[in-house]
């Protein structure tokens, strides 16, 4: 019997075991409480640019009323917002604006991309439109539709609740900021070109980089 085995305190596994116990305790006791309060008090920051914003307003008004799901207060300042809802198409001219709004929001923060145009560019596959806001800011929930009905947005909010309730404080890198890289992009150039691949009547258009 070596002296290290007397109590187990000095064993190499001791720290690991204690840390795992602590993580387990956080996951079982702290996370549910924190996530419950976060999910049920989401302050949305509306970024309405097009017809989706009309459906967003309907979702906020009395008939659908997303205050029932904890979005009681709409934060028109990004510095007091939890979830950025991009409702509508995003032109390239607005790309630095939504990026700055996203950068100003404090952690924890989430993004809902509402509608076909915000998610993929939709029918606006042209020179002026961002092909999916996920090339500019990271997106948590995509709500399809053109525009989505308020029920669709509410379902997206409930999906976001589900996602938040699955998060854990001990997950490394979960709340890391995602800054633009030195090229000024959020995704690698090849990915951006791939997810906005040519199709339709301009199939023959060249893609010089």
């Amino acid at each position, binding site marked *: 019997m070596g002296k290290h085995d007397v109590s187990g305190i000095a064993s190499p596994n001791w720290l690991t075991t204690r840390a795992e116990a602590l993580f387990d305790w956080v996951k079982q006791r702290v996370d549910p409480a924190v996530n419950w309060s976060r999910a049920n008090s989401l302050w949305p920051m509306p970024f309405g640019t097009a017809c989706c914003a009309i459906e967003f307003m309907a979702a906020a008004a009395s008939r659908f009323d997303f205050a029932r799901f904890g979005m009681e207060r709409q934060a028109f300042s990004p510095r007091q917002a939890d979830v950025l809802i991009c409702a509508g198409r995003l032109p*390239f*001219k607005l*790309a*630095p*604006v939504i*990026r*700055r709004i996203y950068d100003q929001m404090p952690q924890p923060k989430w993004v809902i991309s509402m509608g076909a145009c915000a998610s993929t560019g939709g029918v606006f*596959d*042209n*020179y*002026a439109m*961002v*092909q999916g806001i996920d*090339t*500019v800011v990271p997106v948590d929930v995509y709500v399809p539709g053109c525009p989505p009905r308020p029920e669709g947005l509410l379902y997206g909010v409930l999906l976001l609740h589900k996602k938040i309730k699955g998060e854990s404080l001990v997950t490394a890198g979960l709340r890391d900021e995602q800054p*633009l890289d030195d*090229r*000024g*992009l959020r995704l*690698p*150039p*090849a990915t*951006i*070109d791939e997810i*906005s691949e*040519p199709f339709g*009547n*301009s199939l023959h*258009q*060249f*893609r*010089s*980089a």
Partner: protein
Amino acid sequence: MNPSVAALRATFGSAIGRAMELCGDTIVYVDRAHLVDVLRWLRDTPGQAYDYLVDVTAVEYRDRERPLEVVYFLRALARVADLRVKVELDPAGELAVDSVASLWAGANWLEREVYDMFGVTFRGHPDLRRILMWETYAEGYPLRKDFPLRGRFSRAEQVRQALNANPEAHYSLEELSLADVQAELPPDMVDRLRRGERGTVPHSE
């Protein structure tokens, strides 16, 4: 046919090109050297009185033989009459035409839009900058026929250039502030601003 065309021919002679009526609208072609004179005459002559410039736009046809045209939509508000004036630009030389912003102040932004979308230069324009696309936009003029639908650069390059644009670079504080240009405003506008929305001078004065 709008009777203004006959009056234009009588006044300007060979500077007036062909004229046609289409869907009830009269279109008249004007020599680009006389454009400002013709439009000023149409605006100031009592019988014509086209006092409202509805729109300025441009047309590029698929037929490469046809030159690019700049179109002026005029309206006489009191007479309820419309006239469409077209100018053909020089296909070989530079795409340029005289600005009419001195006749109608509203032409300022309309001509900026034509410049932004078609690359037509308006000589004598007080502030010829892009108006829809951002100022550092480098891909060209989007409504020209040789412009690809998705732009000239790859999507990644477009995103990069857009994200590197400064969203605050478009208007300076001086441009947005009326206080600094108060001395240069016309007196009736100064008076209107002083009276405010209710149209009355505040009690304090």
